[in-house]
């Protein structure tokens, strides 16, 4: 056997490599799937907060021991021992006796070990407490203080209130590094007001005896027991997470349906488990489809190579038969060489695949994943053995069934040509039908990734059929043109049956390469688009509530006065899911800072939404004096006699950007004047934004009211010309129109059908607020804004609003802040930037102004999260498939050379004997292969691109698709062309090397028999 292998070591190496490749492909499937599952589980668990991964049972009815008994024993291996805490809500009177604050008496396992005792000691006995340093600073306790505590119970539940006295024995701090201590006492509440509760302070840590012992300060009516099981992340993997989720869910169901005792279960493990399960399922399908294509390709190639190998041994088989070994003996002779080689290849593949997987895992997965030999891997290895055995036995059977006289011929008799033709035509028809089904939408989902193989198989086989006639035609033309060597080379290309097989394989392999690169790059592009859309900008800093937009704007302008790198983003969502959010930004900075995936900043007319470019009417002073002059002012209707309610007022925006309405004076009826003097909240300068006329309810008012001779703190003050004001009307038919008396003093021409007409606004205030919309809004429409509902006017469109949901609209925050509306809108404030350093400066500035950042997310963070998904990992497998397909194509060519080089060298030697020089021989041999490879690679690449256009929209790009669709399936031409170009160069380079190698062996000595 060894002598045979040595004799054909090149071929043997190819066979071994192919069998190894086939096995690696097969084994990589389960390995990759497993790694993906583990990667997904690891990623989900890593991204989850400790609160989400722990299980917490709270109850006021059950004791901690009773809660522990509820916990299923099956979960014990995955969780640490439970931490128990007890809490009783109490009120304590401050040392100065001014008022009481709300806190909890809190006892937790290991509190004394984990807390830092700043002074005093940790409580050990009943009635001893330890308070936080913030509590000390805010409320003034001292170690040794005796404090009366009163139980805080819901009066609807009980009238009995326990009370007692505790002693402060120490002061604690929660170590900053212990953020994952889920049983840590509640802090950060000292001096804050908790809605519906009142002023609160941090937990008072005490010993359990203070709550439960007989000598406790009081016999508390309501003690909440809490038992917490922390998930041991090292003990949990994909499989155990899928087990844990449903068990915890059962526990939740039991808790919900629990008898009389109220038990609250806090965890997100069932959701995490479900997410991992669905992600794994999704990835599995794509992996199977991608790997199976490669597997089929490698199997076909292995079959081709084995057919070539057995053909190469036909003379030896004939000898075995002539020496009386019979068909069985001949088969044994053949298998004794082929089986060890191919099974050796299987062994190599089995051994190598975990290492390949480890390499791939390092590149693909964001978290370290263990490479596990699972049952699937063993099955895959066995399947590889079976597949290799089947292919080898079939190839051997085909050879040994050939009659001896046929074996003695140089080439086998073509008695199966008809059958082969039928199979080929059937394959072409099947492939084209499947592609047609894909185009018509009947083939979808992961199966769509079969498109490149199907299309390429059909194209390759059709091309193979056309190869003969075309090359004959070309060679005849070349021959007539006197280019005999080129003609002979081209004819040589198709003379051997291997040429068609190589052509078909090159087409399929390059099609897979083109498709895989297309799929990979498209996937990356789409995830990048989605990340940009989700995060909105390179850096997005969310701010803690309450963060007043005006303060944020001021801070940002201080850092970035040129509006280049920072923009505030205030997103207001109305009540109800049907209302699209309004995004208020800095229109100068926003187009520079934000991402516009699949679109561009230039798409929006940003100047159109800028707040009016008129100067604000600044009023500084604490007293405003002047005269109100009426002209034909009439008050009608049932309330016409309530003249004391007819008032003119000034609307100002104070320095802290709050709108206030300052009543100036009563308005005389008919024609008259009256002087007024009123206080102003404008010591630090206000901006006058409107003039209002307030009328009593049930009246109709009309006429002109003029304000003249105005002085602020004695200095003359003008409300400006008529053009500095805008007419305002409302839906009830009321209107206010700017007017002026002959001296040019500003007046208000008012006409009201209802009680109070609208406020006449300064031209500095936008009304309605211009907006860029993404929906179908036209004209003026109402929308939520940070300070309440406002009128927007669609002045332009955008494809999408970065970082926001469907139907969002963009307005100028500056303009919105000039508006007089006041309210508690449901808004979130963020700062976006394209420059990390500028953002850091902004963060410092915000902190200075008492605005605390909540979370910074970068587009890379979001991209990483999207990358850590089965959908992304499945597409990453394309790299392997594409690379392996080129490797397979190269192996096919090597094997074709290995099995035919002797005959080719003999042909060339005969031509050398006929006088052909060496360069011509090399050219002839090169021309014999290069056109086939070039045509095959070009057609294959085209098939890959076409298949990607057809199939990629069916391939899932995201595990959880984002709400705003930014997927783009345009062909990434540069990447595809580069990949196909590299593939072509590799294949062509190999052809050059092998043809020169063969030509070098065309020595005249080959004309001898051995």
């Amino acid at each position, binding site marked *: 056997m060894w*002598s*045979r292998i*040595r*004799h*054909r070591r090149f071929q043997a190496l190819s066979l071994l490599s192919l069998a190894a490749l086939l096995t690696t492909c097969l084994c990589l499937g389960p390995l990759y799937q497993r790694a993906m599952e583990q990667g997904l589980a690891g990623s989900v668990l890593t991204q989850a907060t400790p609160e989400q991964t722990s299980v917490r049972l709270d109850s006021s009815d059950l004791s901690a021991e009773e809660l522990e008994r509820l916990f299923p024993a099956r979960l014990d291996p995955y969780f640490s021992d439970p931490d128990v805490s007890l809490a009783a809500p109490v009120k304590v009177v401050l040392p100065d006796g001014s008022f009481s604050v709300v806190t909890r008496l809190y006892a937790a396992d290991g509190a004394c070990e984990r807390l830092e005792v700043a002074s005093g000691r940790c409580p050990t006995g009943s009635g001893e407490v330890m308070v936080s340093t913030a509590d000390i600073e805010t409320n003034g306790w001292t170690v040794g203080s005796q404090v009366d505590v009163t139980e805080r119970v819901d009066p609807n539940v009980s009238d009995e209130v326990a009370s007692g006295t505790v002693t402060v024995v120490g002061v604690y701090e929660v170590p900053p590094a212990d953020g994952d201590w889920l049983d840590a006492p509640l802090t950060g509440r000292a001096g804050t007001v908790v809605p519906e509760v009142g002023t609160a302070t941090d937990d008072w840590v005490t010993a359990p005896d203070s709550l439960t012992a007989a000598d406790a300060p009081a016999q508390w009516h309501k003690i909440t027991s809490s038992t917490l099981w922390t998930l041991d992340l090292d003990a949990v993997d994909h499989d155990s997470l899928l087990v844990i989720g449903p068990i915890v869910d059962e526990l939740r169901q039991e808790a919900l349906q629990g008898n009389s005792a109220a038990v609250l279960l806090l965890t997100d493990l069932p959701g995490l488990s479900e997410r991992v399960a669905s992600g794994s399922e999704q990835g599995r399908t794509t992996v199977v489809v991608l790997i199976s294509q490669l597997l089929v390709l490698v199997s076909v190639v292995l079959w081709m190579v084995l057919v070539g190998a057995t053909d190469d041994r036909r*003379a*030896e088989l004939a*000898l075995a*038969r*002539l*020496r*009386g*070994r*019979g*068909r069985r*003996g001949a088969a044994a002779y053949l298998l004794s060489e082929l089986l060890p080689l191919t099974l050796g290849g299987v062994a190599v593949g089995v051994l190598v695949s975990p290492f390949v997987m480890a390499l791939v895992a390092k590149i693909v997965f964001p978290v370290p994943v263990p490479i596990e030999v699972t049952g699937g891997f063993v099955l895959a290895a066995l399947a590889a053995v079976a597949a290799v055995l089947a292919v080898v036995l079939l190839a051997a059977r085909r050879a040994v069934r050939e*009659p*001896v*006289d046929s074996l*003695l011929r140089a080439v086998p008799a073509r008695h199966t040509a008809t059958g082969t033709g039928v199979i080929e035509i059937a394959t072409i028809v099947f492939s084209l039908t499947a592609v047609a089904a894909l185009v018509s939408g009947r083939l979808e989902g992961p199966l769509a990734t079969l498109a490149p193989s199907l299309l390429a198989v059909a194209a390759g086989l059709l091309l193979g059929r056309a190869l003969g006639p075309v090359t004959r035609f070309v060679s005849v033309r070349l021959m007539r043109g006197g280019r005999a060597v080129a003609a002979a080379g081209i004819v040589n290309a198709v003379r051997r049956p291997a040429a068609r097989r190589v052509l078909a394989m090159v087409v399929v392999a390059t099609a897979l390469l083109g498709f895989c690169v297309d799929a990979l790059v498209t996937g990356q592009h789409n995830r990048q688009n989605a990340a940009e859309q989700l995060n909105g900008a390179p850096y997005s800093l969310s701010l803690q509530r309450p963060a007043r937009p005006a303060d944020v704007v001021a801070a940002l302008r201080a850092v970035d006065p040129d509006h280049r790198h920072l923009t505030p983003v205030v997103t207001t969502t109305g009540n109800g899911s049907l209302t699209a959010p309004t995004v208020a930004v800095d229109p100068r900075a926003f187009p520079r800072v934000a991402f516009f995936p699949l679109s561009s900043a230039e798409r929006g007319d940003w100047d159109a939404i800028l707040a009016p470019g008129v100067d604000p009417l600044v009023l500084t002073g604490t007293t405003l004096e002047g005269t109100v002059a009426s002209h034909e002012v009439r008050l009608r209707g049932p309330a016409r006699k309530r003249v004391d309610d007819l008032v003119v007022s000034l609307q100002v925006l104070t320095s802290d950007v709050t709108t206030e309405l300052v009543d100036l004076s009563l308005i005389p009826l008919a024609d008259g004047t009256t002087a007024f003097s009123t206080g102003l909240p404008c010591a630090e300068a206000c901006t006058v934004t409107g003039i209002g006329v307030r009328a009593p309810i049930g009246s109709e008012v009309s006429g002109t009211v003029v304000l003249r001779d105005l002085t602020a703190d004695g200095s003359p003050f003008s409300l400006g010309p008529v053009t500095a004001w805008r007419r305002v009307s409302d839906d009830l038919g009321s209107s206010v129109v700017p007017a002026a008396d002959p001296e040019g003093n500003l007046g208000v021409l008012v006409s009201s059908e209802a009680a109070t007409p609208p406020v006449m606004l300064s031209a500095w205030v936008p009304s309605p607020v211009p907006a860029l919309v993404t929906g179908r809004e036209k004209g003026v429409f109402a929308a939520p804004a940070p300070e309440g509902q406002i009128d927007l006017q669609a002045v332009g469109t955008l494809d999408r609003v970065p970082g926001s949901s469907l139907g969002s609209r963009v307005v100028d925050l500056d303009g919105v802040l000039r508006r007089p509306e006041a309210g508690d809108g449901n808004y979130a404030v963020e700062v976006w930037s394209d420059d990390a350093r500028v953002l850091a400066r902004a963060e410092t500035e915000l902190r200075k102004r008492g605005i605390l950042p909540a979370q910074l997310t970068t587009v890379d963070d979001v991209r990483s999260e999207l990358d850590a998904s089965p959908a992304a990992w499945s597409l990453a497998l394309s790299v392997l498939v594409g690379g392996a397909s080129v490797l397979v194509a190269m192996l096919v060519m090597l094997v074709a050379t290995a099995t035919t080089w002797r005959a080719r060298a003999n042909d060339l030697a005969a031509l050398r004997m006929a006088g052909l020089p060496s360069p011509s021989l090399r050219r002839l041999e090169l021309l014999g292969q290069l056109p086939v490879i070039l045509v095959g690679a070009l057609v294959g690449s085209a098939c890959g691109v076409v298949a990607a256009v057809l199939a990629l929209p069916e391939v899932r790009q995201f595990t959880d698709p984002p709400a705003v669709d930014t997927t783009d399936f345009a062909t990434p031409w540069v990447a595809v062309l580069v990949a196909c170009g590299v593939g072509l160069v590799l294949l062509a380079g190999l052809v050059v090397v092998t043809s020169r190698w063969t030509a070098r062996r065309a020595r005249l000595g080959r004309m*001898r*028999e*051995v």
Partner: protein
Amino acid sequence: MTTELILAPSATAPRGLAVHTRGLVHVYRGEGRDVAALAGVDLSVRAGEMIGLLGPSGAGKSTLLSLLAGLFRPTAGTVVVGDLDLTKATASELDTLHATDVSLMLQGAARNVLPFLTAAQNIEFAQVAAQRAERAGDLPGTPTLLGMVGLSDLGDEPLDRLTPGQLQLATLAVVLSTRPGLLLADEPTSRLDHEARDRVLAALARVNRELGTTVVVVTHDRDVARWMPRTVTIRDGRIGGEGRSGEEYAVVTADGFLPLPAHALEVLPPGTLVRLELEDGEYRLRVERDQS
């Protein structure tokens, strides 16, 4: 280099196998047309005889040799080797025949050996089936065979280092390794120089003479034919004549036809009327000159 035969005749192996063919016809089926390679060959070779099959290219010599070797079945007629009718033999019987009784030496020495083995290894390879057929005890050893063809020192040399003559002798050792009763050799001396050719032919003659092996040699070389005690000329798929001890004979076929030798056709072109006359106990052909 000597070619002394030191291979002793076997007690159990056949001394030589007789060959008989009757009405042997073989047609090659091609795409669009059939070609009759043999058109009724009646040939008898006695056990232990050595004959040469002569004839031009395409006459059917190699086809006849292949049929005698049982490589395929004839279109019509019978082939009997020893006691076995090859046209009725099972695959197993044919395998046994090839393992023990009939050796075929293909044209071109390289086609008879595995190129990656040495001569000695090729002999071992050739003997495997014979050993399984319970003839192990009768099989000659490798050194004996190599010595027989004068390649004692070259048994372990790679084959590509042997000269064409040495390679053909090595081939002869291989085909004799199963101690066959019938040795069929297709152009065993083609592409050999005279010296090598003579050595190979001498070896074949001695195998025939000293072991009693029936030897059938296909050749188109008249010089080679001179080494054969009996030659049979195949022409157009039929027996065209025989030569014995340098004399040429026409052979009457089983159905009474008498093919004339080629050179006679120059004198007696097709359509010539001849009269067969018995004179003094001998038949004479007399050409009818006046054919009007």
